[in-house]
């Protein structure tokens, strides 16, 4: 059995707005194993970013509210991240888990030099001198492939291109050698050739340091190329969890299947793309039963009234769908 790095149990998050409570995450359960590359895929409004921000406790409370659940570090019931004090949280972020965001321009401080921002993180987490911090920051810049790191150390974020900024973000995230790197749409704002560079960089660093990486993305291509396991989210729920090879070979959930067919392919010919009818449901007006039933081509009577559970249908393959569960001959456990 693989070692669990982070275990997420029954996590539910809601937003309170003008007295109304809108639930965003519904009983999210998953494990992150040590050394793996995990992908969370979903469209906008599927709750994937809220999941990662809840893990890091980066969502403001209020308006957000964590309704329940546990995030256990190393699966240890005594290390519930959601119960950490602010001090514990500070050392958890950065040392254990680090995060990079989609927009490298807005996540770097524009009035501080890039080098300073990296050494700041080092000084905060480790008992080292300023000179040592600078030396290590320059080493990090070099590691992420920035040319002439000594002079780049003194650059401000606006002096760098998008790809370079994202490299600085990665250097900052990795400077304290965290065990888990959460990459929230790390390449969405970048051009394809730069995206390829950044994905390769994260992949190399992951292999070299044996780091665990969690990608959050809407791009199935990124998942197929980088991840070993993937979680498909829709409307705040996990719809399918599987090894990437299984997910692409035999997607069990109609939503996963639809997503794959809806993507235009580079190496195949087709005249019309598959169309998932309708839109992602509004969180304030969730449909009854399965959240996907009103867009599902295989909708059955039971789907309209009863919410399916996430059930194991194969080795490391879980799905939340009545039809897939029937097909796999699973006992219905509600």
């Amino acid at each position, binding site marked *: 059995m693989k070692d669990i790095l982070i275990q997420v149990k029954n996590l539910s998050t809601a937003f309170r707005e003008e007295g109304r409570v809108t639930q965003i995450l519904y009983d999210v359960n998953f494990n992150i194993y040590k050394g793996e590359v995990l992908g969370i895929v979903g*469209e*906008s409004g599927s709750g994937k970013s809220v999941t990662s921000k809840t893990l890091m406790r980066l969502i403001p409370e209020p308006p957000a509210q964590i309704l329940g659940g546990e995030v256990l570090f190393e699966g240890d019931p005594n290390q519930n991240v959601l119960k950490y004090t602010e001090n514990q949280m500070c050392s958890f972020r950065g040392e254990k888990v680090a995060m990079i965001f989609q927009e490298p321009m807005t996540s770097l401080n524009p009035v501080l030099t890039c080098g300073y921002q990296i050494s700041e993180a080092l000084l905060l987490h480790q008992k080292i001198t300023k000179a040592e911090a600078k030396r290590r920051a320059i080493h990090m810049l070099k590691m992420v492939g920035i040319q002439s790191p000594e002079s780049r150390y003194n650059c401000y974020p606006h002096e760098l*291109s998008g*790809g*370079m900024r994202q490299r600085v973000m990665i250097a900052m995230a990795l400077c304290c050698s965290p065990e888990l790197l959460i990459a929230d749409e790390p390449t969405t704002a970048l*051009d*394809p*050739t*730069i*995206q*390829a*560079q950044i*994905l*390769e960089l994260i992949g190399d660093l992951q292999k070299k340091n044996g780091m665990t990486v969690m990608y959050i993305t*809407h*791009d*199935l*291509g*990124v*998942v*197929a*190329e*980088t991840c070993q396991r993937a979680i498909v989210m829709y409307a705040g729920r996990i719809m399918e969890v599987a090894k*990437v*090879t299984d997910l*692409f*070979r035999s997607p069990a959930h109609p939503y996963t299947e*639809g*997503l*794959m067919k*809806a*993507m*235009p*392919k*580079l*190496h195949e*010919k*087709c*005249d*019309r*793309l*598959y*169309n*998932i009818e309708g*839109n*992602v449901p509004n969180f304030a007006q969730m449909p009854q039963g399965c959240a996907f039933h009103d867009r599902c081509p295989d909708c059955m009577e039971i789907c309209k009234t009863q919410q399916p559970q996430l059930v194991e249908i194969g080795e490391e393959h879980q799905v939340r769908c009545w039809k897939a569960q029937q097909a796999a001959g699973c006992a219905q456990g509600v």
Partner: protein
Amino acid sequence: MENLLEVKHLKKYFPIRAGILKKTVGYVKAVDDVNFQIRQGETFGLVGESGCGKTTIGKMVVRLLNADSGEILFEGRDLTKLQGEALRRERKNIQIVFQDPFGSLNPQMTVGELFAEPLKKHHYGTRQEIDARVKEMLQVVRLSPLDAKKYPHEFSGGQRQRIAIGRALILNPKLIVCDEPVSALDVSVQAQILNLLKDLQEEYKVSYLFIAHGMAAVKHISHRVGVMYLGKLVEISDSDEIFEHCLHPYTQALMSSIPIPDPFYDKKRIVLRGEVPNPINPPSGCKFHTRCERACAICREQEPQLREVLPGHFVACHLAGEAGEGPKDAD
């Protein structure tokens, strides 16, 4: 097939001004001697990374920007020389759909008003005729007649993009410039919009200039594709040809850098070193030579011209097509 649009030697340099006197200290060569044609009922895809000048071309075609030199021939008439009334009349034939459906629709107008505005501007007909046309167009872009009374904020991103498409189509244009129409949308919604654009083309025989950085979408919708790098077209060919046998090293790198949503697909990825050079100070010779693995002496000195390497396949690279054939001019 007849050429609907012909772009010849199109140039757009943006001056860089500095100092208190705002003296021009240099130029960004956003579009530098670009040639291409769009045929009737055809989709021409224009791809490239940000800053390569693809949007500038789109804007010049609809005359939101004026070209510095060169010609844009639309059915033989040069758009760059048109003024006043003549230009207004021509605008009816060329419409544009922008990337961001949140920013491109006036939030204070209902969908009905948004649809009717271009009709009124171009004296389409009586009020009844306009109303009928609006109703018809709502149906064409798969919206319900009740939606005419709603405001843009009441719609999702995909629906809003359909409103923008309907508005562009309402005057029966011959050419629609689509500037990144699906980049801001989710995968499942992207498919809806791409299918809609294809259906509309079949029905109304409209041509598209489809500008995007999403390769897969471009391949799906385009008949022919042009690849841009630093203000230059580096390769033009049929869509199938370019995606299977691209000849320019930049196109090859661009294609290989797109993540393929298939874990079993075995591919050789070419990861380019470095970044797009500064367009104020582009490299000498071939603009791509600083990042090109195959660059040799001639690439650093001489700028390659677009030449026809295979029938209908144009490449601007000294090394493409090898075998010692003499360079031919594209036009």
